[in-house]
């Protein structure tokens, strides 16, 4: 399942890798892509093993607030 997160706090392109790897470290996440220019975070995950709230939490512990967005 594809979930889209949006964050207003991305300040430096170096945060891209950090967020992506934090998300991919979660069990059930197969793909995570952070777009620095637009603040979009695309996550491909198995909803049975990890839900959208857990994704938001992972991004938060990486240091950034985010929210789930429909588009």
């Amino acid at each position, binding site marked *: 399942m594809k979930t889209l997160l949006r964050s*207003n*706090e*991305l300040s430096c392109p170096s945060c891209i890798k950090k967020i992506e790897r934090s998300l991919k470290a979660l069990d059930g996440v197969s793909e995570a892509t952070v777009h620095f*220019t637009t*603040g979009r975070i695309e996550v491909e995950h198995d909803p049975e093993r990890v839900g959208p709230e857990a994704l938001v939490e992972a991004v938060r512990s990486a240091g950034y*607030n985010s929210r789930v967005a*429909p*588009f």
Partner: protein
Amino acid sequence: MRHLKRLWRDPARRRLALTVSSGALIGASLMAGHGPGPEAAAYPLMVAAALVAGSDIASRAWSSLRARHVGIELLVTIAAGGALFIGEAWEAAAVTFLFLLGATLEAHTMERTRRTLRGLLELAPESAVVLRGGRQVEVPPQAVARGEVVIVRPGATIPVDGVVVGGRASVDEHAVTGESLAVEKGTGAPVYAGAIVQDGLLRVQAEGVGAETTLARIIRRVEEAQEERVPVQRFIDRFARWYTPAIIGLSAAAGALTGDVRLALTLLVIGCPGALVIAAPVAVVAGIGRAAQRGILIKGGAHLERAGEITALALDKTGTLTEGRPRLTEVVALSPAPAFAGGGALTGADGSPWGAARQEVLRWAAVAESGSEHPLARPIVEAAAELGPVPQAEDARISAGRGITATYGDHTIAVGTPGLMEELGIEVSGEARAVLERLRRGGRTAVLVALDGLILGVLGVADTLRAGARGAVEGLRRVGVRRIEMLTGDNLQTARAIAGAAGVDALHTELLPDEKLARIRELRREGHVVAMVGDGINDAPALAAADVGIAMGAAGTDVAIETASVALMGDDLGRLPEAVRLSRATLRVIRQNLAVALLTVTGLLLGVLAGHVDMAGGMLVHQLSVLLVVLNGVRLLRA
């Protein structure tokens, strides 16, 4: 207590709180050391400042390490920690404070460049009222199923794409269509998510929901464009990938070789290429976002770059320079005609009724054109229909490029060029030719109408020049487009009038689609960066062959929009010079930013190695350069 806990959990708030605290502690320390206050407190206060700011940086460094990523936070943590270790509390405090402050300001300012789309995103409705089981239920807009009916009250935003099945209202659709005036919508009318109902109530059956709505697709297109890298960015990203490890290596080497711990730590502080990596992206986001606000959809960073380099521009005539809606404008009667049974009366502009002769010319022509698909047929038939019902011709034959011949009862009708009349053996008088020429010089497409071997009259069909076409051409010249041409399949005389009115440099007429393509290629061979503006399906090859294909949005077909680099959402030609101007401005900002970034990176590196730059200074210059570059990008939002 609970309030504090919530503060701590919110990364942004926490960072801001720690920045302020750290700054206050530094201030207190300086006051203690140099002014009022116990001198002995200066050092511990400074250490406290470093620890306060450093805690946030260290925790981020830790979460980064857990994700197996060496980030700038780790470098700053080591540098600050090392500075504390060798007793340099001021350096540690200044570096951590400046890093936090910089990060907060950068995040905030970067967010301003993303804000152009916030406007569109905020138009996305929060909730929808859907009819289920006879009751009104409030749900999130994505939860509406296709085929369900939603109710939209006055002042509310339409939550889905769909069709009106009940009610009537005036609707503000400018976010989606670029139309600034509100549009009346009644049963059967299509509506878009994001449009606002001004007065009246609508019941809408959903066809597109959530990510499938036009609004969502526009946002997605703009965001994908903002995410696409300009060519120079790929090079910079590759450079950035090895810059940080290289600095770490350099720092370790310098420390080991010279034994100068401070030098090694200072190198770590500048271990992030900072301004260089966001130099181009910030400009691209702001430039494309600003353009989108103005109804100009640029497909991506690379397209933006080319659009800023345009030196020649070719415009299609029909539908681009002109409205694309031909209208019957003249009916000239040349000889008396057999009366048509049962007709109404058309009145001229002065209120006087049209003479019977003119009515007959029109109605006979309409009969012949009644079954034709030709672009001239519709305006003729529509105008005649106002006189009364138009019967279908019995038998119609098209002579390609020349006209149409048809039979009705005992009569034979012909509508077309002098060439057609010649083919049919019908004499075309000098008077008729004079009328033809007069109409053509006026920019009309003119055709003769003949009944049973005799010329009845002449019809003039006009496709009017778009308002603002001339202004747009002049505007393009002002932004530096040196050569502007009109390309058309239409005939020379008709096209010449339009070309003259628009003010283009050159005119190429009677072109087949392949020939339009050839002209584009020729311009490119002459060294121009060529833009082609068009809308129809026949323009797609030329749009693709040009350096920059520009499609007129609302009027354009899907094929043209997909092939083009730039889509003008409305039909306003005035956006053309604006699109070029914005692209040029964005390119300028990218170049300025890259210059600042490069100067800073090399300057800092040399400065640190030469020993002229200390940790605090290095961090200050680094953060200032990043802020400068982002603010320069923000300027584009007001371009």
